[in-house]
């Protein structure tokens, strides 16, 4: 059997939340028919604003939520089916998660050593010295040191706590990491610390990363390919440079135009684009789906929109010549 191209493959994944009954039944389509793939050692960024479903998507992949429908494959094996003890073990051995809130993501009652070492204990590493040794090794990798192991989370700053969270995820040597907004709650200069750390660790361990964030600049900096989400749907997937140089979906364009540039000459005269789904699309006759406009560049659109986008890409290529 050949190696699958994708380490993680998501196919038509849906995650709905329902509440109420009968007439008052409310269904929130947090994740609606999302499909994409992440290659080994690739960093795939997932970006979108509040309510777009990116966090729900990450949590559904790692089975903190169960999918409503659709499939997720990891290394060829389906991980979205019925949860068995074997599947749970497979998941926890291969995929780890880093969380957003530095205060909430660490148990205030446990020491740093206990927090980081828990993953090892679950895997059956019983020898206390062995656990200690590996915990200290991990602490040093994330820029802390041995004295920090006996401390409690409240004694650390936000950036340090995130680093502890990273150590906790990495100590079990997962193949893939889902990073759910790992830097959003940190100060700007601390964000850089953590991003640099993640980059170094990515290199060292050859990690595959699903990077979820709302800051497009950070996502673009850190990721190889990016998926843009809008209210539960993936609207565009492309390599970073293509997304930035040739944004096709009107939401992507609106998003890019809204990012304030730290350049006083251009910031004020920047033209902002609005996205209005009613106005910018007409899906009464033609129905939209994910179409590959150019290699590795997908957009959620109708056939006539697709034709238009292809034209844009062609003229962009010509202009570049």
């Amino acid at each position: 059997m050949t190696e699958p191209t994708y380490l993680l493959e998501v196919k038509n994944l849906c995650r709905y939340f329902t509440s109420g009954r009968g007439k008052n039944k409310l269904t929130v389509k947090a994740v609606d028919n999302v499909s994409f793939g992440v290659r080994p050692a690739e960093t795939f960024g997932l970006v979108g604003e509040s309510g777009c479903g990116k966090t729900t998507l990450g949590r559904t992949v790692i089975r903190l939520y169960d999918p409503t429908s659709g499939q997720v494959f990891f290394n060829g094996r389906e991980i979205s089916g019925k949860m068995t003890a074997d599947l749970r073990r497979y998941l926890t051995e291969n995929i780890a998660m880093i969380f957003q809130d530095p205060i909430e993501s660490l148990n205030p009652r446990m020491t740093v050593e206990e927090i980081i070492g828990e993953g090892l204990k679950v895997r059956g590493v019983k020898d206390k010295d062995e656990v200690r040794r590996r915990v200290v090794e991990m602490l040093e990798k994330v820029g802390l040191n041995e004295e920090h192991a006996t401390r409690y989370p409240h004694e650390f700053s936000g950036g340090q706590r995130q680093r502890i969270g990273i150590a906790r995820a990495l100590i079990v040597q997962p193949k893939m990491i889902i990073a759910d907004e790992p830097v959003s709650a940190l100060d700007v200069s601390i964000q850089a610390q953590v991003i640099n750390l993640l980059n170094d660790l990515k290199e060292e361990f050859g990690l595959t990363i699903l990077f979820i964030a709302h800051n497009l600049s950070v996502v673009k900096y850190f990721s190889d390919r990016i998926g843009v989400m809008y209210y539960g749907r993936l609207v565009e997937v492309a390599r970073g440079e293509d997304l930035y140089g040739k944004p096709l979906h009107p939401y992507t364009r609106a998003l890019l135009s809204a990012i304030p540039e730290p350049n006083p000459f251009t910031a004020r005269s920047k033209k902002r684009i609005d996205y209005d789904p009613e106005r910018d699309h007409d899906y009464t006759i033609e129905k939209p789906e994910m179409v590959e406009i150019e290699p590795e560049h997908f957009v959620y659109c109708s056939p006539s929109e697709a034709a238009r986008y292809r034209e844009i890409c062609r003229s962009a290529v010509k202009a570049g010549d």
Partner: protein
Amino acid sequence: MIVDRNRLPEEIRDLPESCFEIVGAEDIRDEAPKTEAIGFFKDAISRLRKNKLSVIAFWLISLVIVSAIIVPYLTGYSYTAQNVALRNLPPKIPGLEKLGIADGTRILTNRPKDSLREFPADSIVEIVREYRINNVEMVDVKVDYYAYAGVPEGEYHWMGTDYLGRDLCTRLFMGARVSLLIAFFAVVANIIIGVIYGACAGYYGGKVDMLLTHFAEILDGLPYLVVTILFMLLLGSGMLSIVLALTVTGWIGTARLVRAQFYRFKGREYVLAARTLGVKDRALIFRHILPNAIGPVITRAMISIPGAIFSESFLAYIGLGIKPPSPSIGILLSDGQRVLLQYPYQTVFPAVLISVLMVSFNLFANGLRDALDPTQRGEI
């Protein structure tokens, strides 16, 4: 201060060259923390110690508990020995009696002056009032009631006696013993049942939660008194049956609280993180959720102790309490209330004790709640 580089003030211009050597590190690592690592409970205890009211409350509670254990032995009286001749003696405390407080005296009203001749020798202290009614000379006379009743010299009853001549001090602290034991067992039983029930409902959620909660709600709807009376009729009176009666619906409040706490904490990111690491349910409940959720439960337990004492008192008051002659604070209150206007001391002592207990437990529970509050960690 603002300075112009071309026109520097002397003290700045003349700084030595050596000052301007670059010494900043290229690779600055995080410092090791300087202070002691403090576990959560140690931290809580140190904060509790700093709360003066809680410390006072703690000592008061301890005092009552210790008294309940040793005082009945110290008095030398039995709590059951009846001596009707010695009934309703007022309090008499050696030492204080010389100051006129608790000196075993009582004012007898409306006695014909002539009857004074028949009083035991040296029992009359003074005549308080003299007046005439229908040409008969009447007096209100203050007597040393102990002498009056023929109590042997040297026999003191610090809190007086009740209507059967039983020493109230012994009965009061025996009663405290009984009340505290009942309250303690009832609360412990409620906590255990409540935690298990609430944890299951809260952790598993969904249908399990719905079933458990509905059942609890139905049980809660039953009238408390009716249920308790039924239980007492079924089981007879006695400490065990009272504890059971208090437990029948007492666990529901705790279960609700624990369930709510579990809902609050099971979605916390550190719980999710543990789940993604493969930590099993049992460890999640006992290592991650429970230690963080338990604070309010402990506080609630503390506060419900005086509540249980009060419930037991109430049951005793309406005649459903412990079988006599066993005392409890409630029985003493009930007995004393019957003669409240004639012999107020018989109500005052148990009332003061139960008030002290309730206020102390409340203060301590409040202090405990603040001390266990995780948001205040590391503040001091």
